[in-house]
């Protein structure tokens, strides 16, 4: 009995390993890299965050298997636009040139970037169908377009894309930490490289082993027809661009998202961050969209009040 159990465990283990290797081989990932001004700041241990990110990217991209497709998308456009490295098989001879050109300057328009990166992945999934599809957000602060993050994140997840987050040298967890597949905090260059490496090189999307006996007990009282309909819903993944929704995002929000905090960009965590889009320092706060909405709302309210006053 024990032997049988051991054999089963070993078999399952080898299958999971095999599927992990398969996943790494068939991984399609876009690294959304925060190159906002705050990434120029020094890490707790070591040089500037952007320098650590460059080194980590160079090392990890150099190790990607030929079958993997990787892209690096910048929050702020560089010389060749937002795609520092276009999504596809990695051209290892071009990594150094591309990565060395990387500069940190600008805001943190994460929501907009998530949509662009997700759309590229969805287009690829439409073509390939198989493989694992991930967004890896590497950021040292909160989004300046938090409203778009709120809008797009559930849609991206509803389309079955995995979202992983690495908080770079953040004193507090990123607001996405509890709402994404994995969250890692990297406070020094070595842990940043390790974190990026773990997502890009070494993880399968999920345990793809076959069922075990205990699984049937868990499902016993789940109605069969309901299960069949659930499978239908799960297997009809939409690949249309985010925001055009084939799958409307979930708005019931059983667990409210944590409030968006200003990003602590200084080691002593004392200075608040400016939140001007396009400014040197990325940070959270009141977004431009919200501001516009508020202004329109105020104008409408004033008009209504003046209309009522006139009628009187």
């Amino acid at each position, binding site marked *: 009995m024990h032997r049988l159990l051991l054999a089963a465990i070993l078999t399952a283990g080898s*299958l999971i390993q095999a599927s992990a290797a398969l996943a790494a081989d068939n991984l399609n990932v876009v690294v959304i890299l925060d190159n906002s001004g705050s990434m120029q700041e020094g890490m707790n241990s070591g040089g500037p965050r952007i320098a650590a990110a460059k080194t980590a990217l160079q090392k990890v991209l150099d190790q990607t298997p030929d079958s993997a497709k990787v892209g690096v998308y910048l929050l702020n456009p560089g010389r060749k636009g937002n795609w520092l490295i276009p999504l596809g098989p990695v051209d290892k001879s071009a990594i150094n040139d591309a990565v060395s050109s990387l500069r940190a300057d600008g805001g943190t328009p994460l929501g907009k970037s998530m949509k662009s990166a997700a759309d590229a992945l969805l287009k690829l999934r439409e073509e390939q169908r198989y493989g694992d599809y991930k967004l890896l957000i590497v950021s040292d602060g909160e989004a300046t377009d938090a409203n778009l993050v709120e809008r797009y994140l559930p849609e991206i*997840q*509803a389309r079955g894309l995995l979202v992983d987050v690495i908080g770079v040298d953040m004193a507090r967890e990123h607001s996405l930490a509890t709402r994404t597949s994995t969250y890692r905090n990297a406070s020094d260059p070595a842990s940043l490289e390790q974190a990026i490496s773990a997502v890009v090189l070494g993880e399968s*999307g999920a345990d793809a082993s076959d*069922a075990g006996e205990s699984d*049937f007990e868990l499902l016993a009282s789940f109605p069969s027809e309901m299960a069949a309909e659930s499978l239908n819903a799960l297997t009809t993944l939409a690949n249309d661009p985010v925001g055009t929704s084939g799958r409307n995002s979930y708005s019931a929000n059983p667990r409210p998202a944590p409030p968006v905090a200003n990003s602590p960009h200084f080691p002593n965590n004392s200075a608040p961050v400016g939140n001007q889009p396009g400014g040197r320092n990325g940070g959270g706060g009141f977004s431009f969209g919200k501001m516009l909405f508020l202004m329109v709302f105020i104008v409408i309210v004033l008009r209504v009040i003046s209309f009522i006053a006139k009628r009187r």
Partner: protein
Amino acid sequence: MFRTTLFALTACLLQFASTATAQEKFSSITGPLDVTPVAKSEPIQVPFITWGGDAATFYANGGLDTKPDSIYGKAGLKLKLTPGDDFVQQVKDYMGGKSPFLRGTMRMLGQASEVIGKDPRTKPVILLQLSWSAGDHIVSREGLKTLNDLKKDGKKAKIACQQGGPHVGLLYDALAAAQLTNQDVEIVFVDDLTGPNGAAEKFRTDPSIDACCVITPDMIGLTGGVDSAGTGAEGTVKGAHVLVSTQNMSRSIADVYAVRHDWYEANRDKAEKFVAGYLQAAVQVKKLRDDFEKSQRLSPEYRNLLTQCQTIFGEEVLPTLEVDAHGLLLDCNFVSLPGQIAFFEQSGNLSGYNSKMTAALDLATKWGYATSRRGFDPSGFDYRKIAKLANIEYVEPSRIVQAEGVMEFPDDDFDDDTIVSFTISFEPNQTDFSVDRYGAEFDRALQSASTFGGAAVVIRGHSDPTKTLVQLLKAGIEKGIIRRTGQQGSYKYFLNTQNGSNELDLGQTPALVKLIKTGAFEGAADSPLQTMQAALNLSHARAEQVKQAIVNYAEKKGVNVNLSQLQPVGAGIADPVVSKPSSMAEAKQNMRVEFRIVKVNPETLTESDFDF
């Protein structure tokens, strides 16, 4: 298009009964035949039948009588081509020494094998494979979707088929592909290939007939076209559609020339010239045909050939040149020199001479045409010499065509295009597919790929959805969408809604589906969508492993395989047999790899060096 081999006369002579069970032996049909030596005088009588492949014989001969400036004329042959659609008469002429040649299909020779193979002098030597047919079809009514349906839930399909003609072989192969025999269906034999006493008319007038074996014009008449279904208008039969066609089952009907053994021994040089001349002519005829197909401009040379065919076969058979006569040639896949080598010499060719002879003798003995197995001999030609005589390049065929899968199936919807399917199961967490356990299925897959040379063999992996459903519940609990109470073995699940908690029941299905579709279960450590994707990837990987195992097996056995036909596909958890397994036994039903023979456009397959 037209295989109007008017076996009507044969059928009349045969006086076959109208059911498969009352099969008459071929020797009873011909009556006793004495063997007479072949006349030494010239011209040599060579039969032809109404088929596109015979157009190359006319071309090589310059008409029915050899013209001095024709390919055969220049080779020093003097032939007289004579109609051979009455196969029984052909056999009589052959045995009586009037002609050393027989013209038919491998299966027709099989039906006559006991008669023609009894005396060593008349034992057939197969000289040449002219072509593979692409113009014969089995048309069925609406209820039959695949060949597997010919026997469904114990019900035997009733199939109309001409007795003694090429469609007997077509039917045999179609049944074999679904692992059925003539005992599993009810065959209603009819006298003629086409016309009022043909299978198409029987199908049209007798609603109890489920399917019929027909030539292209009849297929179009019943269905409206190879990819259409009849509407009931303009003579079509409502719902009638092509169940299988030799366009896809492209290595079923092999047209051949055979000669008597005694004549071959004495006239080997003439036999070589005959074959070389045919192959030389076939190259040119194929080019003329394909040029017209591309340009739609009738060259004078092609017009002459089509006119010649129309004159020989009759205007009632080929009313027009551009449609009917050209269509006759389009329905024929000429077998080139590499194809001859592949057919006669490649032991690993599952549609080669040995396989086809075995199948022909199987049919003859199992269906009652013969009681003993009397085989044929191959010519044993030196094909380098034949290439030189034919003035064509000597090219050896490939054994394995290296190519990517023929196509992608993004919508996963092959049901309408599936011709036949079968399934293998695997154990939980199985990662290898050994020959020891799956050899029989691999053989079947390779045989299917060979017989259905114009189809894709889709290897479709399936995963069990249990893990995904478990992840759905776990993610729901983690995110507060679902609440669980009770102990192991007696859990209860509740859907947390704005109105409180309700135990999961069918009424809440739309709400649950909506939550799934809006990503409510995602973003936690347990992700049902990721598990679903992982299952999809794994099912594809398993299909790939099965494909690789088949390829390795084929290489080890020396079996020919065209890799462009093999298409691994992952279905993941999208098509489970049991949606919510309650035990490992039920889960195992979902753990399967399906083989589906799927219609594709044959032109998408890579066959340039594999043309047999």
